[in-house]
């Protein structure tokens, strides 16, 4: 039986984490393929940890804040250690819908893809697609990735993605600490894994604050673009 792990990085998500967990538990009740979860508490300063322990939610409490990259890598290390076949990155703030996990893991189960990105921008639908400014930034990053790797990725910052066992090992061993989604996607493409995008719907952020703020966005853009250009000139070990 295939084993699937949902990696849920969480920083100060006391408002949402229980709701997210209950939705996954509800889904698992009627599912053939049940999802395991691991919450990575990135040294939250609120009651996230307390809520997890009180409700028996599997959680790893990081003893120091590492940021999204470090937290998610911890999840991949856990997935690798426990021999999971598929790992899914799932937000702890309620933006992702557990019903769409099936859509992003199916291409991996069918061996058609190694990394599947849940994309907000493939199909035209009315669901929440994030602010105009963010969409503009995402498009710039998409163009730079196309320049660096030759592949067009539409949702470059989506934190909703699934990967195969081989990539789990890859990520467990090395994962960027900042701006991980566009960078790892570009690196995975350069290593000649199969990458695909699947349309999904995401919800508007419920409570809590997004981890990217206005001025930091410019700094973020410069950093990501430069990193992606470096990826273009680096040499990578092909996976096959």
């Amino acid at each position, binding site marked *: 039986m295939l084993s699937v792990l949902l990696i849920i990085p969480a920083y100060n998500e006391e408002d949402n984490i229980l709701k997210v967990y209950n939705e996954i538990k509800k889904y698992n009740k009627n599912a053939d393929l049940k999802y395991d979860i691991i919450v990575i508490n990135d040294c939250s300063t609120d009651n996230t940890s307390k809520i997890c322990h009180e409700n028996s939610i599997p959680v790893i409490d990081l*003893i*120091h804040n590492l940021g999204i990259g470090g937290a998610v890598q911890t999840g991949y290390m856990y997935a690798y250690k426990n021999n999971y076949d598929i790992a899914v990155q799932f937000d702890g703030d309620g933006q992702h819908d557990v019903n769409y996990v099936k859509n992003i893991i199916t291409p991996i189960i069918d061996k058609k893809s190694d990394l599947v990105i849940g994309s907000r921008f493939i199909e035209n639908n009315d669901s929440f697609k994030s602010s105009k400014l963010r969409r503009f930034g995402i498009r710039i990053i998409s163009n730079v990735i196309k320049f660096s790797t030759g592949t067009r990725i539409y949702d470059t910052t989506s934190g909703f993605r699934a990967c195969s066992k081989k990539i789990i090992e890859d990520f467990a061993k090395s994962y*960027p*600490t*900042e701006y991980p989604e566009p960078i790892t996607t570009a690196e995975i493409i350069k290593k000649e894994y199969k990458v695909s995008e699947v349309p999904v719907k995401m919800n508007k952020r419920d409570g809590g604050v997004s981890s990217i703020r206005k001025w930091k966005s410019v700094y973020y853009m*410069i*950093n990501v673009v*430069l*990193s992606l250009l*470096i990826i273009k*000139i*680096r040499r990578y070990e092909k996976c096959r």
Partner: protein
Amino acid sequence: MSLKLTILLIFLAILLVLLSTHFLKKGRIPVKYTLLWYSFSLFILILSFFPGLITYFTNLLGFQLASNMIIFILIGINFLLIMSLTIILAGQNKKTTLLIQKISILNSEVHKYDSQQRK
């Protein structure tokens, strides 16, 4: 400002860019630490293309020679780089202290659990 000096400055800027890119490519430095180096290289490059600027400040600040002004600027840049290193180091120190403390606490809890198990 002499042509030799201009060429030297351009050479320095290109050298810094090549070095930073080399370490970036090897994955030895993450991008955010190279940003300062790239910014200063760009600054030095701009200076070399506008020697008029350097002569203006040389006279304004009372330096005898343009080369003295340039050395002063490069030392200033070095101070800024060292300052940024100090800040990064301080952050590392804080994290290491925290790690030592938390592992020590973990250690004593494991010992306590261990001795309880033996009873």
